């Protein structure tokens, strides 16, 4: 085994290896996915460099232990803390953050009640029916848990679109491979020509969940809804939280267990209960993420703190790129609601569907929209006790405004 250059021999080397693996452990504790395989890569990289050089150790670690720009800041902090000295490396562009995590929500009661309610059996079918139409913001902690449980079972079908990939078919492009295989089977006799047609694939959904103060009563439920979307189509769903900054939480939401996923998400989001600068964050989104051909879902009350005209401009760009833009506003469930905030007014002209997002029934409706690609009433998709799943049977009602699927 080649030596770590500058690593001395025997005990020295063993001590060095344990120092380096200890650093990888520190990183893991800080949330960087520096697993065993990566740690081996770190040691292998240092065999090509000089382990006595601080910057060689810095780069060997950064290149082998990190896997995204989000890791870099954590890496630098851990490196400085573990090896001492100045914070190394170039400064990374870190957006301003406001760290105020929301803990209690209106309607949350003390520990005692929590324990008492936890004993209660899951709601019956008729109770679910009542619950389905209740405003999440006015629920007790127990009711909200029940809604969370039902959201965990949400089966969300996804609108399909034709991809470039092909599968055997009676029409479409000539399938050379299939034709040759057939010809060989027939002993070289030129066979019928075979064709392959485009396969369908799920349309991408990009969902933004507003976690600012004015949305505090709904953010948790909306993120659970997002979790159901990610679980249903992990490779065709992206979720971001918006508030004072844009945070990608897709990876956190990939955990199968909703409780684990929600814990990961709340740790990842630094700006719970701040204000909303949706215009700027949409701009960031358009830079970071490819929304072309996607269904973009924005869950927000449109209480924009930034410049509403900026929001309007970004919404316009978004609507040009996206297949459809669905705005979910929890207040829309109230018949008396009028979209009067400057942000909402600026956004409205660029929205394909404007829907409520306050109750389980509203989330089911949203799930159906994502499955069918058009506004049709009726049908809900939560598999509750004794409740059959109604699969969407509609034909996607293309609005002719989205981008073609090339």
């Amino acid at each position, binding site marked *: 085994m080649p030596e770590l250059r500058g690593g001395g021999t025997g005990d020295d080397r063993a001590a060095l290896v344990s120092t380096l693996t200890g650093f990888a452990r520190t990183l893991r504790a800080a949330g960087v996915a520096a697993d065993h395989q990566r740690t081996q890569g770190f040691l292998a990289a240092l065999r*090509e460099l000089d382990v006595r050089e601080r*910057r060689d150790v810095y780069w060997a670690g*950064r290149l082998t232990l990190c*896997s995204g720009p989000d890791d870099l800041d954590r890496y630098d902090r851990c490196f400085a803390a573990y090896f001492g000295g100045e914070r190394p490396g170039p400064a990374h562009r870190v957006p301003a953050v406001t760290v105020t995590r929301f803990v209690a929500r209106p309607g949350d009661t003390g520990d005692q009640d929590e324990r008492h309610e936890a004993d209660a059996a899951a709601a019956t079918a008729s109770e679910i029916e009542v619950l389905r139409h209740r405003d999440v913001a006015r629920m007790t902690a127990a009711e909200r848990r029940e809604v969370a449980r039902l959201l965990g079972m949400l089966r969300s079908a996804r609108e399909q679109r034709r991809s470039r990939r092909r599968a055997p078919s009676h029409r479409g492009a000539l399938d050379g491979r299939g034709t040759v295989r057939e010809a060989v089977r027939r002993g*070289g006799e030129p066979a019928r020509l075979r064709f392959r047609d485009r396969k369908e694939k799920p349309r991408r959904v990009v969902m933004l969940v507003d976690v600012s103060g004015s949305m505090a009563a709904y953010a948790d439920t909306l993120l659970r809804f997002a979790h159901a979307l990610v679980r249903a189509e992990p490779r065709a769903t992206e979720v971001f939280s918006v508030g004072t900054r844009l945070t990608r939480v897709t990876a956190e939401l990939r955990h199968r267990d909703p409780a684990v996923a929600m814990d990961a998400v709340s740790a990842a989001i630094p700006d719970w209960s701040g204000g909303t600068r949706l215009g700027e964050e949409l701009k960031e989104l358009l830079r*970071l993420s490819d929304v072309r051909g996607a269904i973009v879902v924005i869950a927000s009350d449109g209480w924009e703190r930034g410049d509403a005209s900026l929001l309007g401009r970004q919404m316009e760009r978004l609507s040009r790129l996206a297949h459809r833009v669905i705005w979910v506003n929890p207040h829309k469930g109230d018949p008396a609601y009028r979209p009067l905030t400057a942000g909402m007014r600026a956004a409205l002209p660029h929205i394909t569907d404007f829907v409520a997002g306050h109750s389980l029934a509203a989330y089911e409706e949203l799930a159906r929209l994502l499955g069918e690609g058009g506004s049709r009433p009726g049908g809900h998709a939560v598999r509750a006790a004794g409740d059959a799943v109604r699969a969407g049977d509609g034909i996607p009602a293309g609005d002719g405004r989205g981008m073609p699927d090339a």
Partner: protein
Amino acid sequence: MAGTAAGIDRLTGRAAEIDSPAKLATLLEEHDYLADEGLATAAFLALRMGRPLFLEGEAGVGKTELAKTLASILDAPLIRLQCYEGLDAAQALYDWDFARQLLHLKAAEAAGVTDVRALEGEIYDRRFLVARPLLRALETWPCVLLVDEVDRADDEFEAFLLEVLSDFTISVPELGTIRAETPPVVVVTSNRTREVHEALKRRCLYHWIEHPAFEREVAILLRRLPACTEELAAEVADAAGRLRRADLVKPPGVAETLDWTEALLTLGAARLDPGLAAVTLGALLKYREDQETVWRDGLLGAASPGGGGGGGGRA
């Protein structure tokens, strides 16, 4: 251990001279590519360890250009796979030349060969296989394989890319496994429009390329555009840095500062004159709204000659 042994095998020819990141940086510079310490170390380790290099960063920071420059340094062909949505195995790995296969079958039939086994043996031969970039890279040595903008391809593509990059083999069901004698140097780039799968990144060295620091951008401008004066380069780099800190839809990359400077030089600029800046701004900022932001917030104002001697101190 095995990985390092393979790494040493591949260090024949030009690559053998490269014994440190600094040495590689010097060679890159000789080919007009100015890498900072991080990127030079990343590329050095990719060569030494035989691991693919995964480069992410905003548009125009030099991801693609690095792969091209590595190829010229190593005096090796660049095999490029440009990714796009719907890219599939037949376009990335290999395809059978079915027209030739059918002709061959017809000839065989005429000659009276009808045994299926015999026909299969003849038809599924390497000579009827059309190598696409990934297979070509395994069969070419030395070479640099560039898998460009992998985030544009679908995730199914990532699965077979991962297979190829894991052990540098491609298995063709009708033919068997094709293995690279010596793995190619691999550069994978992404603009991060989509999160690339963790398993793929774990196979690679990961590097995030930032926009160049002021001094390096000046050096790049002077290196790539010999007609450019130091004053102009400093003013352009200073303005570019300011625009990147501002909140734009598409902050300018090195590609754009080069284009802009070239446009300025064409108009005879020796300094960043506000009038010339105005007529050439389209080369720097591709979005109308970004241009409006720049005028509204006076982001170029301080870079004008009136803005105070020497030109282009860093903010």
